[in-house]
């Protein structure tokens, strides 16, 4: 390889790195709806800070050392309702939080779209649905949603104690809105949590999320 080629390669590497940084930065800018490279399973889960329903900012970094579940939701979506009306989601929330897992429910519906709620409405939903998340985060501008490439509701993510993203995708393997499909389904999130608790790699780390589109602005 000639020195000239070396230089060219170095230049290309730098250009690529520059583009990557620019892409990440642009994704973080809420004003830009650009769809940058989303979080990747097997890499560090990107940090975010989003206000919870009580008005206080919650940042992912503050949960370092704990397993975190991220659940994107939209209470009017038939696929979300399948899991709440069957009690499946609340059951999993209790199971997880009972073992010390942090469960963050995120709502990325922009104002005026389906699933958008005010903080009191969100709390009301938690009460009326008997849900048990650690916190409900109102990601109205979709910053966290786009950072994670959340496309569907429900869309589930699991972050391990080291802050690595270890699961992204569907809640289970029955991509329907029928409640009758809940009992026989293979729950990917439960499987991921079990694997993380046992210190083993997640068997199915990436699956196709199913449901309604996230209602970004």
């Amino acid at each position, binding site marked *: 390889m000639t020195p000239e080629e070396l230089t060219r390669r170095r230049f290309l590497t730098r250009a690529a790195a520059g583009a990557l940084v620019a892409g990440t930065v642009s994704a973080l800018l809420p004003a830009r709806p650009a*769809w940058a490279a989303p979080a990747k399973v097997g890499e560090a889960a990107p940090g975010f800070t989003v206000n919870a329903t009580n008005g206080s900012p919650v940042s992912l970094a503050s949960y370092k050392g704990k397993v975190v579940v991220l659940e994107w939701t939209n209470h009017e979506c038939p696929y979300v309702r399948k899991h709440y009306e069957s009690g499946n989601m609340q059951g999993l929330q209790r199971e997880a939080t009972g073992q010390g897992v942090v469960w963050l429910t995120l709502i990325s519906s922009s104002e005026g779209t389906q699933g958008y709620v005010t903080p009191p409405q969100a709390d009301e939903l938690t009460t009326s649905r008997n849900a048990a998340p650690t916190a409900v985060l109102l990601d109205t501008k979709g910053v966290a949603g786009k950072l994670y490439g959340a496309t569907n509701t429900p869309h589930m993510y699991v972050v391990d104690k080291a802050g690595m993203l270890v699961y992204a995708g569907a809640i289970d393997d029955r991509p329907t809105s029928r409640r009758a499909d809940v009992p026989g389904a293979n729950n990917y999130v439960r499987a991921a949590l079990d694997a993380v608790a046992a210190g083993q790699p997640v068997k199915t780390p990436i699956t196709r999320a199913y449901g309604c*589109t996230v209602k970004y602005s």
Partner: protein
Amino acid sequence: MALRFLAAGLVVGMLTGSVLAAEPARAPTVKTPAPPGPPKVTVTLLSEAASIEPGASFWVGLRQRIAPGWHTYWTNPGDSGEPPTIDWTLPAGWQAGPLVFPQPERMPVGPLMSYGYTDEVVLLTRLTAPAGVPTGSPVTLRGHAAWLVCEKICIPEEAEVALTLPVMLGRAAPGAGASAIERTRRAVPGPSPWPATLRATPETVTVSVAAPGLEPDRIGKVLFFPDRWGVIDHAAVQEVSIDREGITLRAARGLLPEGAGSDLDGVLVIREKLDQGLVSQAFTIKAVAAGPGSGPSLSLLAAMGLALAGGLILNLMPCVLPVLSIKALALVGYAEASPGLVRRHGLVYTVGVLSCFTALAGALLALRASGAQIGWGFQLQSALVVTALAYVLFTLALSLSGLLVIGGHLTGLGQGLAARPGYAGSFFTGALATVAATPCTAPFMGAAVGYALTQPPVAALAVFEALGLGLALPFLALSLVPAWRRLLPRPGPWMARLSQALAFPLYASVAWLVWVVSRQAGPDGVALVLVGLLLIAFGAWLHHVARRAAPRWRRVATGLALASAAAAIALAPLAAAGPPSTATTGGPGGAAWEPFSPGRLAELRAQGRPVFVNFTAAWCITCLVNERVALRSPAVAETFARKGVVYLKADWTSRSAEIASVLDSFGRSGVPLYVVYPSRPGHPVAPEPRVLPQILSEGTIIDAIEKEIL
């Protein structure tokens, strides 16, 4: 009674169910805009048949009429959504196939992408009645259809559908849904005639479709819909480039890390720009994963290795073996001569082979660079070259048979052209071996030559030279290593027998070449070639006779022999100029056609007959693919017959000014071109001809004929 059942059967599409889902949300205090009352999709079950024939299969369709602004989903719904389903409740013995989807649309939803349908879609199912279904009482076919319909929000809907049809013996008449189902079947992607590959880098996925010879200017849009999630980012822009080799589509990679590691099925939609707007055609393709190497599947060295092996095998081909054996037998003669001389002959022979390969490969690459769609063996596309080759091999065969002795030694073992003493003889043996070898594609050669043709000229030439070296190697080795030469048997009468025996593979090669001429130049061409061969044989005999004759007669005989050979040579171009080759024969089941001429076209149009003209050529791959995939289909033949369409074929294999001017009038400089000339009997002005896409499917032709010809 039967009439009443028939009437009942015609009332197709009983929508008995209503929307069951979409119940209001349970959270009472949070305002939920409950999905508005009426369903967003109304469904109807259609049947292509008006009655059920026992034991027969027929298509039924679930028609979805979708509210404006809403959409339903394809089998792969994209980033979200769910494909429709139908669960059949059929009487015992009935069978239902899977749902068959017509080509979808791309529907961006914010930053996400959905694949599906708007407005109206018919989803097909093939039902098969049991052979024993009793006639007389009607049968009701029930299904539970469920689908997701989305605008900004999504609503799962479902309905019970049913269809009651009478059972009657004999072929069923078209049902009320026949035309809608027929239309949909044409929108269902058909199998693609082209191979496709899938390559991936960490960021991108590239699908390459080997559809050579497309005119990029006329392709409006190309879209790829993957059947499964995770390989290609659904929402990503698909960068499409079209060149001589085909279509290349690049998009951002999907989320599954192992996604590109296995083959990817999907639908390729090609929208072609025509005068009347875009025409959309869909094909199913299987993009074969290129493996983890993700580079070219064959390295240059591997290709050269394969070429070398292929070249070695070429030595055994019936057209090559006799040529080489002449040389090998000559070696036996040289055995006593100096090793240096033998070695030099071997090297000169190798140079002859390699120069001839260089010339052929150079010509091939130059022609391809100028846009010709040709492959190895292209030289045989010329009837003149084939005729010349037949003459040469025939002369050689005569010489091996002992009928023609050139150069004087009676004991010389059938020394023909290639046995001329001196280095020129060795050089020409090499050249001749190469020429004779080209029509034979040895195993291993195909892959190597295929690889070479996709490479830059230097790499391509390297592969061809490796092929040549393989061909030259056995003789070269024999001439370089005296020890191996000693393995050859001692000279003796057996050599004459062997050379006579070896004449027969050459005669066989000649027979094959004459058959090739018959494909290229028709019966007249064959007759002329046979006369040419006769003249050569006659000349050879005269020459033979002349050697023993008195000097005076010898001169006469030699003169006649030469005249005879000259006449044979003069006949060659005539033979080759016979009727031009046809691109293809009609083939079984295909529509009958007649040759195109502007006069015939004008005559037919004056008679008010509708005409379909196929401008084609034997060397046009796209044309041949279209013929195979579309034009030869029985359905097309049936449509032509039903509509009284006259099918003319304009063969541009050998260029003709007449056809060129017609092509030119459509703004084309080449083929394929497909034109429908509609007719409106009684109309004073003939309607404008309509140009069809350069990529044809059965559906496109039938659609055009149905639409243009009443």
